[in-house]
């Protein structure tokens, strides 16, 4: 366990010593504040609109941070050759993968927390209203969803050595699931065979990341999600995360590591 935390610690240090996170945060903050400035007419809907933009930016930024950070971990270890002194120590390949996973997940979690604090301050200062529990649910579900995304990216980085292609493919896959994943069964309904079966199969195989998106509840203040549903969603995310980590380990376990 100590080994896994040591590995995770390095990933977290890397995140806050690199610039990517700050750039995304400053961009999100600037765009949100700029959107808030448009409030000339004192339109009550404007707050909702600012919330909507800010939430969207938080989702995009968190996905970018998660995927970009994860996809480069293992290729960078191989490129700089640090993987050699590391695996020559009493570190198993399984611990190496878990350490990278927890490092990326915790680092993304810290970033997410910073974004949500900003969101709470901005909207709270407008509305004098802080629905903490809703925020807590939103951040938790989003973080659980990101665990699946991170495990998927790690798996991708084993298959393809170039971080940029891993990043692109994962981002497209995740965005595709978030935008269309929930509608695939409807699409399937209107197709003829064999397309129908293919669409249904995809619908049942993909992790339904869109279930974790409760932005509308935060923006329109629709109240809390049933806590039991939160627990089930968490278990669902854990199952997919475990599956992707297992695949990563299977791919990496016997990999020859020279050059």
């Amino acid at each position, binding site marked *: 366990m100590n080994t896994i935390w040591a590995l995770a*610690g390095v990933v977290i*240090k890397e995140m806050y010593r690199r610039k990517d996170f700050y750039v995304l945060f400053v961009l999100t903050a600037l765009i949100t504040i700029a959107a808030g400035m448009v409030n000339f007419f004192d339109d009550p809907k404007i707050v909702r609109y600012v919330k909507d933009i800010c939430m969207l930016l938080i989702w995009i930024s968190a996905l970018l941070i998660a995927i970009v950070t994860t996809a480069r971990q293992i290729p960078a270890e191989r490129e*700089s*050759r640090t993987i*050699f*002194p590391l*695996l*020559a120590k*009493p570190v198993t390949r399984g611990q190496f993968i878990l350490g990278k996973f927890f490092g990326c997940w915790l680092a993304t979690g810290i970033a997410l927390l910073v974004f949500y604090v900003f969101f709470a301050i901005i909207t709270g200062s407008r509305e004098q209203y802080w629905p903490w529990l809703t925020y807590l649910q939103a951040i938790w579900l989003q973080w659980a969803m990101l665990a699946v995304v991170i495990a998927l990216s790690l798996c991708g980085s084993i298959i393809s050595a170039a971080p940029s292609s891993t990043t692109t493919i994962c981002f497209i896959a995740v965005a595709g699931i978030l935008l269309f994943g929930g509608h695939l069964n409807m699409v399937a309904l209107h197709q003829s065979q064999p397309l129908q079966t293919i669409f249904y199969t995809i619908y049942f195989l993909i992790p339904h990341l869109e279930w974790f998106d409760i932005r509308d509840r935060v923006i329109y203040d629709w109240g809390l999600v049933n806590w039991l549903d939160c627990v089930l969603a968490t278990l669902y995310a854990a199952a997919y995360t475990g599956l992707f980590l297992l695949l990563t380990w299977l791919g990496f376990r016997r990999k020859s590591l020279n050059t």
Partner: protein
Amino acid sequence: MSIILKTEKLRVEFTSGELRQTTKVALGSLDLEVNVGEVFGFLGPNGAGKTTAINVLLGFVPPTRGAAYLFGIDVRQPIARQRIGYLPEMTYYYKFLTAEELLRFYARIFGLPRAEADKRIDQLLKLVELEQARKRSIKSYSKGMQQRVGLAQALINNPDLLILDEPTSGLDPLGRMKVREIIQRLKNEGKTVFFSSHELGEVETVCDRVAIINQGELKATGRVSDLVAQHQANLEKAFLDIIGYQTQSAS
């Protein structure tokens, strides 16, 4: 004398290309034995198979045939690596960390308690002369400093056996001398050092025994003085002789 490192008929083939049609034999059938307390030089020209052999010892590359043992344990078992230190060829350590942070990270992997790790890190930074730079991030280090950080990380667990892959390559004469001094000091502490090199000058001064390989085959093994006597020449001449290179003057 007990044997600490051993390979038996070790063969490594690499297959590459589409449909795996080309096979490259990096190591033919390597037999090596290194005794406890020796400084052992593993010599050969570039591409001879030195790094490949070391990669097998560390479990990075599986042997195609044959076997390798550290402390009598098959290298396929991770436990064989508990008491070793390893310095890879040209490694660029996490450049966003400082030397101190890097060593603390490795110390944690070995489960060293905090106080012991602090003491060890102080000792090592002193040994490799990086005390001044310990709080600077590694990206500002010169090549020689990087190599010395590498040596320090290889020693973090106070290993009994050190495996160094070309520890002096790319260093200036002063840097090379410092690395040699460190190897000498480790030998005096009773440690076994196995290192690869293609620099003959340094080998003569620090090694008890050497093995010379070329194109994946063991060509000679023994004490430096014996090899030199056999070939009635200095080590460099003997080396060229052994790897089958005909010198111009030998007319």
